[in-house]
């Protein structure tokens, strides 16, 4: 067992964990933060995406012990004082989700994308989301949601 300490969604947590425990399992099982989910086992799908020290990472591809002493933000840490994050609002407004399973990871990565590139083109948005799979939406409205959040016009297509 290894003792770790980390800040998650603004809260401070201290636990003894097996080194083999993945960050995503630590979040879900030990902290009860079930908003972050596991979608695959080869780090392709991105459903587990969180922010680690402000940058997006796949939490299935990080050990909890590697996050010791670091700061994690999950989907559950986005809304501030009951107010949704602009990206969350954009996904809702643009119907950028259906079943919602990929959505937390998609939103977290979209925020990182905009942080990095505040006015992305459609192509840049699509490339920026290449690490996040969705099976329901066909990505069309997800792209619109990111454009909406970036304050861009969302294109002429219906």
């Amino acid at each position, binding site marked *: 067992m290894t003792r770790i300490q980390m800040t998650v969604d603004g809260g401070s947590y201290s636990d003894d964990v*097996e080194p*083999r*425990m993945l960050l995503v399992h630590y979040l*879900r*099982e030990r902290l009860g*933060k*079930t*908003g*972050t*989910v*596991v*979608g*695959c*086992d*080869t780090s*392709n*799908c991105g*459903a587990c995406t969180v922010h680690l020290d402000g940058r997006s990472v796949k939490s299935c591809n990080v050990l909890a012990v590697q996050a010791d002493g670091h700061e994690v933000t*999950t*989907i*559950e840490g*986005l*809304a501030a004082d009951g107010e*949704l994050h602009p990206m*969350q609002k954009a*996904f*809702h*407004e643009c*119907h950028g*989700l*259906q*079943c*919602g*399973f*990929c*959505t*937390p990871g998609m*939103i977290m990565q979209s925020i990182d994308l905009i942080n990095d590139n505040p006015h992305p083109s*459609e192509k840049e*948005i*699509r*490339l920026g*989301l*290449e*690490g*996040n*799979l*969705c*099976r*329901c*939406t*066909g*990505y*069309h*409205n*997800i*792209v619109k949601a990111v454009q909406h959040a970036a304050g861009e016009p969302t*294109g002429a*297509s*219906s």
Partner: protein
Amino acid sequence: MTVTEDRPAQKTAEVGRDRRRKEDLRLITGRTKWTDNISLPGMVHVAMVRSFSAHAKILGIETEAAKRSPNVVAVLTGKDLADEQGILINAWPITPDQKAPTHTPIALDRASFAGEIVAVVVARSAAEARDAAELVDVDYEDLPAALDLKEAAEDKVLAHPDLGTNKSAFWQFDSAGAGTGGAVDEAIEQARADGIVIEREYRQQRLIPAFMEPRSVVVDPTGEQITMWSATQIPHILRFALAATTGVPESKIRVVAPDVGGGFGGKLQTTPEEWIAFALARRLGKPVKYTETRSESLIAGHHGRDQWQKLTLAAKKDGTVTGFKVELLADLGSHVSLIGGGIPVLGAFMFNSIYKFPAYQFNCQTVLTNKTWTDAYRGAGRPEATYAIERIMDELAVEVGVDPLEIREKNWIKHDEFPFTTVAGLEYDSGNYEAATARAKEMFGYDELRAEQKQRRDSGDPVQLGIGVSTFTEMCGLAPSRVLGSLDYGAGGWEHASIRMLATGKVEVVTGSSAHGQGHETAWSQIVADRLGVAFEDVEVLHGDTQISHRGLDTYGSRSLTVGGEALVKAADKVIEKAKPIAAHLLEASADDLEFGSGQFTVKGTDKGLAMADVAMAAFAAHNLPDGVEPSIDCDATYDPVNFSFPHGTHLCAVEVDTETGGVLMRKYVAVDDIGTIVNPLIVDGQVHGGLVQGIAQALWEEAVHDEAGTLVSASFVDYLLPTAADTISFETDHTTSPSTTNTLGTKGVGEAGTIASTPAVVNAVVDAVRAFGVTDIQMPCTPERVWKAIHGHGNGGATPTVGDAEPHFDEADVADRSAGAGPGAEGADR
């Protein structure tokens, strides 16, 4: 009681409004209730030991080392659970003499596909269960495996030796025999003499539904009823099947589908994992949980499609079609699963599609093999049919020398011919192929793109442009129960709704539909808000829990809106009827003088009125009700559809083919779909987009590949290729509206339409791009390699199956160990 002075203003209709979804708030904040979230006191975890061999006798299973592993509660084999594990049923034997092997959740003495469960480990944590599962040692004796579909159909090697054959059932529809048309063999003979005969063989490759949420099941046996939570599309059917196969009374079983992360038919199943969890929970008396890994999901969750299609189209010299003969071989996999045996039959009535064939025959031989069983996947039988007809119509166009849209228009049902009874015996209620096509062409810039195509061809541009057409229809809104009965399907096709009018004016809607992303909470609110004149926000939609929604047939086959929505309308109309006498009594008027609109009962010719909410309160208080009226205006309705519904559409696809690499880039995609009345255009377009990408993915990327040993090679997202946002484009969609004439709202359903239409549109485009090189077909998926080889004459794009290993990205030594049949779960305690 309120007597209003003014009539309320007419509210904006909800149906047709692009309401943002009620479901979203919990989904975008992570306040979700996936089955894997569930944690109960004393809960134990299950890990599965799965066969590495596609076909093997199980000589023995060594469990001692596993049992001694830390915190292991039990290690059980099929034999240990033989009396309790129940059986997995086939609810649709398509013929009386269908051959089906017995399907036990855990294999007993023979594993019949790679991935079949042979033992289970229960431990206090998922990690400990997995650790112990690695220590279970199974002694296999490999048997020859039936893998290739065509060879399996010849019974060269038997998938189930005791069955004596791999051929499960042969099903035929013949228009001459059914009295719905002529004799197809005569039409073909005639066409050989003085017309056109086009013969093609197409491959519908095996796909994997690959919903994003891996399946999970939790069973709690500690309450008065046994509760199963499962990531399923079919909680009601599960409850029924559990009762029918385990002996536990139906009223002692509660099934809950909490938030479910996508299904696409892949979660329309009664699974070994669910039955095992149920049996374990009962045996151990503790809550039991199992969540699959993605690899397990790809290997053991049912697969889709997998057919060889032999097609013979007969036509006159001018391109008028005269007959269509279809001969299918369909791969069932190792077992005839819940409705797996019938999936090809769902397409049986759709090969003739929108065209006026005078003669039609459909033949299907279902075949067992030693691979994962197949069952419903988005479209279930209809994408296969649409692919065949839309590809072959393009071939006909080439043969006749006309534009592919022209050949279609020549043969399709004209707008003024509806309702039209087809050569397959179905009555299409409404449609307008001309209007959808005209709109699609306009949006697409059809003529300009054809001009560009010509220019690129003439100049020998290394990048060629292809244009693909797909004018589809499908049958959905499953289904009229009598029709299902006539096809020997085990259940009906009705749907149920309850409307409860709460005392405080809110409305609770209980639906038998089970949404897993489709937005029913929002769309049903819109329908009820319109029908009862209540506020959209005041409607609460409940679903997915058999103790709350006690009656239903769940969600699949694009049925929820057309069937479930109609049940809703009928229940709402019953509420209005039930409320009328109470309203009349309170308004001191005759019920005949009452009108209902915008949520108000009004007395004709007066200003007197009463809100529905007030009637609900009055019923609750029961202080002043007319004699003989019960103090409730709650109502139920169970609705059985009278016909299937027939959405249709015209899809146009432009692709660029890089002739130097074979790479295909989508340039433009236009979809004009007629799905009847639209309740929520935002939700509809979302369904179209998602459906399109799945259909496009079949055309370009996805395939479940097995090696010669029958091991699934594409067993992770590294090798089973799902497209990302970087691989797809934005789509242009529009709609024409030919309301359905067989339900009140005029809806037709849209859940599968995008997938059904798009696959042939894309392949037609790819083939169109390279026809000038002499290519007439490219087998799906149209990989760059296949396209390149087709162009450069190295075999016409693959009448050969996909061969090859997975991409090796892990240490070669480890990979070698694995592929030699050794590896976790199959050998001893080394790891």
